[in-house]
């Protein structure tokens, strides 16, 4: 029994050639997705899907790293879309490959295809006849475009997808076998470092190189307009040369930064591009008895990968090969082609793993750095690694947001009107999507490109600053407005969830406040306003699991929150338990999640746990610091994140829906966890904190305001 053939998945429509996804080689199956591993376990989930559709053991599957030389172009690995896009494409492609091989086997064995069975790649039929994918591989060309004809297995027929498997990349990482680009050894490898200013927006005016020239190990000093760097035969030599170079650098005055203590004031005073995201008008207007007006603020947040960004580049004439941990090899190639004024065919961009990036960090920037420095390396490969300092101040940040909601309430404190407005820089300035490059060095070289001002993805793709700003609740009337800043003194681009964390924090905080006003249980209120049964199910599930609502105890608070990521992705409800007086600790987070079909359930749990813990770190500790001239949070001391002792217990329940198309899990938890903690603070201390992060100082200020 097969399920009906779906519309060809978007990635397969864009890359229809079956052989670009699947190849059979000597007892192995090579699977080439265009999506990349960034610590989220995607290659394992994709291997599961392929193993299932092809009926081969997962250990036979070799996942090929994305490269512009060979891989399907799947854009960027972001937005929790890899399972949706790459997973569906592979499922469909493998189903068709299987069908083609069954047809060939039927012909060779003289047995009707419907009587054939595949077990670990061996195709057999009645009368003990058998062949295999590998025996038939010479006869079955996969240089065909996928058709709509093949149907993937039904949920009940799958034996690998939907079951937890161990991730295929983990043994290498435990035994320190090089998977990371940082650990890549290449013959003749040289090391580069780039000189960047401390003062925000400062330009290199002049450079005295004399002290550097005599240093041991130096291969080249590279200068291209305001871009300067060194190449040396070891990392230590490159560091020493950079240090000497810095002493000879003369910088222009920079560009002023906003007041870090008045982010909302700054955001609301800038020129903006205003978009009405959505409106809904009540059929019958109930009269508003009062209006609650609240402003919520999220600071700039750093990606703060544990590894500084790294890339390797090697020139061969007018061709260049780039190794990168970018999330989008084709998009990076497009920007490199613009900067280098080369046809894209002259550039190969190949992925290697880096540390988790959580969005658009400096991965792409450092690739251009390596390409520019490698020009001076006489054909030898040059590896460039940023410093911790540069990673924390020159990479893009997640954008600060001010979110204002006005809720009109009737005499019973029911919501009759809702106006949600966002002021924020754009949440995306990724490479490869515009006629101008987004890479940092492109704004430093001679004849520089202007620094790209971040924009927002369209609402159809989940939006940016407006992500999750349209309530999933059935409110009678609303207007949602997004104001995107046209200035960008602090560089911003995609950070996990884009604007969803800020918007969910605002919506779910205000709902909690309204429930308290009404004396209504906050879960009951949410269930009353929701029409989506899957949404209600995750809320009911988390309530059961956390035994909502635990008895009130002094010094302990509980809060709940919910969101469906992008309103089209994973459903997630969270309950936070905190304790504290003025300095709070998050003790436990309970989450329920519905991603449709969970391909690797333990992988989904891992992603939700990780998202919940990272969100806790954002909420309690994280805020990019700056004075009026420079970013000051340039070390782990100045930008602390949650430590092992501060991490809460996290308990996750998955609602498995094998019959529903899978969606990603990586960004589902952040918004709900943020608001659940904020609501637990209110439950515990009776005050609301509207500005993230929720620190001791902010709680004391809120208490003073309340008294």
């Amino acid at each position, binding site marked *: 029994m097969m399920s009906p053939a779906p519309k060809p998945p978007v990635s397969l429509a864009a890359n229809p050639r079956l052989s670009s996804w699947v190849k059979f080689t000597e007892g192995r199956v090579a699977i080439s997705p265009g999506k990349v591993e960034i610590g989220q376990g995607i290659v394992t989930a994709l291997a599961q899907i392929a193993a299932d559709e092809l009926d081969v053991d997962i250990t036979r599957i070799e996942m090929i790293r994305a490269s512009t030389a060979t891989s399907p172009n799947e854009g960027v690995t972001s937005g929790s879309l890899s399972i949706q896009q790459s997973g569906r494409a592979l499922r469909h492609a493998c189903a068709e490959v299987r069908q083609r091989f069954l047809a060939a086997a039927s012909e060779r064995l003289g047995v009707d295809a419907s009587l054939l069975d595949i077990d670990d790649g061996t195709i057999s039929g009645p009368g003990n006849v058998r062949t295999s994918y590998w025996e038939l591989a010479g006869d079955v060309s996969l240089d065909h475009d996928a058709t709509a004809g093949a149907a993937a297995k039904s949920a009940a027929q799958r034996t690998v997808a939907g079951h937890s498997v161990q991730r295929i990349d983990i043994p290498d990482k435990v035994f320190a076998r090089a998977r990371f680009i940082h650990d890549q050894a290449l013959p003749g490898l040289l090391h580069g470092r780039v000189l960047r200013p401390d003062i925000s927006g400062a330009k290199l005016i002049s450079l005295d190189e004399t002290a550097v020239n005599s240093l041991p190990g130096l291969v080249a000093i590279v200068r291209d307009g305001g871009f300067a760097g060194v190449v040396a035969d070891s990392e230590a030599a490159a560091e020493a040369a950079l240090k000497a170079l810095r002493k000879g650098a003369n910088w222009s005055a920079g560009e002023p930064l906003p007041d870090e203590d008045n982010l909302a004031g700054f955001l609301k005073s800038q020129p903006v591009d205003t978009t009405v995201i959505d409106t809904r008008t009540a059929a019958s207007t109930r009269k508003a008895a009062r209006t609650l007006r609240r402003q919520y603020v999220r600071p700039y947040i750093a990606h703060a990968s*544990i590894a500084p960004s790294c890339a390797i580049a090697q020139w061969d004439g007018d061709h260049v090969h780039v190794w990168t941990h970018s999330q989008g090899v084709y998009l990076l190639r497009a920007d490199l082609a613009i900067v280098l004024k080369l046809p894209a065919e002259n550039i190969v961009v190949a992925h290697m793993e880096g540390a988790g990036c959580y969005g658009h960090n400096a991965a792409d920037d450092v690739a251009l750095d390596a390409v520019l420095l490698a020009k001076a390396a006489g054909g030898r490969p040059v590896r460039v690694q940023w410093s911790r300092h540069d990673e924390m101040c020159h990479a893009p940040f997640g954008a600060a947001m001010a979110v204002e909601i006005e809720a009109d309430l009737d005499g019973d404190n029911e919501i009759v009107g809702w106006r949600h407005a966002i002021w924020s820089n754009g949440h995306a300035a990724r490479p490869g999507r515009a006629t101008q490059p987004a890479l940092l060095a492109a704004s430093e070289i001679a004849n520089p490109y202007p620094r790209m001002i971040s924009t927002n993805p369209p609402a159809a793709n989940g939006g940016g600053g407006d992500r999750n700003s349209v309530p999933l609740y059935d409110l009678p009337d609303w207007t949602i407005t997004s104001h995107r800043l046209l200035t960008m003194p602090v560089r911003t681009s995609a950070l996990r969830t884009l604007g969803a964390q800020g918007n969910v924090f605002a919506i779910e905080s205000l709902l909690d406040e309204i429930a308290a006003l009404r004396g209504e249980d906050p879960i009951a209120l949410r269930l009353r306003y929701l029409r989506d049964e899957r949404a209600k199910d995750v809320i009911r599930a988390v309530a059961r699991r956390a035994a909502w609502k635990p008895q009130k105890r002094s010094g302990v608070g509980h809060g709940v929150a919910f969101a469906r990521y992008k309103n089209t992705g994973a459903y997630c409800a969270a309950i936070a338990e905190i304790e504290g007086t003025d300095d709070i600790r998050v003790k436990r987070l309970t989450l329920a999640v519905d991603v449709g079909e969970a391909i690797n359930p333990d992988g989904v749990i891992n992603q939700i746990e990780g998202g919940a813990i990272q969100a806790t770190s954002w909420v309690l500790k994280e805020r990019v610091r700056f004075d009026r001239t420079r970013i000051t949070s340039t070390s782990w001391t100045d930008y602390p994140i*949650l430590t092992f002792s501060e991490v809460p217990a996290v308990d996750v329940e998955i609602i498995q829906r094998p019959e529903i198309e899978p969606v990603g899990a990586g960004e589902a938890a952040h918004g709900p966890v943020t608001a659940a903690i904020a609501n637990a603070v209110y439950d515990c201390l009776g005050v609301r904190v509207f500005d993230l992060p929720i620190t001791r100082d902010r709680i004391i200020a809120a208490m003073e305001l309340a008294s």
Partner: protein
Amino acid sequence: MPVIEFQLNGAAMAVDADPDQTLLDVLRGRLGITGAHFGCGAGECGACHVMVDGRAMASCDMPMWSVADKDVVTVEGLGTMDAPHPLQRAFISEQAMQCGYCVSGILISAAALLKRNPWPTEAEVRTALDRNLCRCGSHNRMVRAVLRAASEMVPP
């Protein structure tokens, strides 16, 4: 440059090195041993942890002169695929990572803990790992893995 002698993963080493060069540089550069990772260069994140005479220490700000005659163990010295350290087995069993960049340093911190305290409580494991940062949020899995390894290493 002076020759600095030390033990590395059980073998005698003699490295002709600038005494002020960091151990991490020598490991990753000259010796091509890349298990210890660069994270911050300031001893603040733990990605570069190695064991020195049984204690987990940052190698990114450890000058070579201080390593002379010491016993240094990197993650490569803990175990191999064929003969894994119980911690390595447990990290696989618990699927205790996401990106895994911090893991080699965390394995070292955990191994040093279990050397001095074979029966750690959960709180003791967390305290021992507080100098290691994990950005992906895999902390609880790692703590479970360390407790699992401890239970496997000590006969009941």
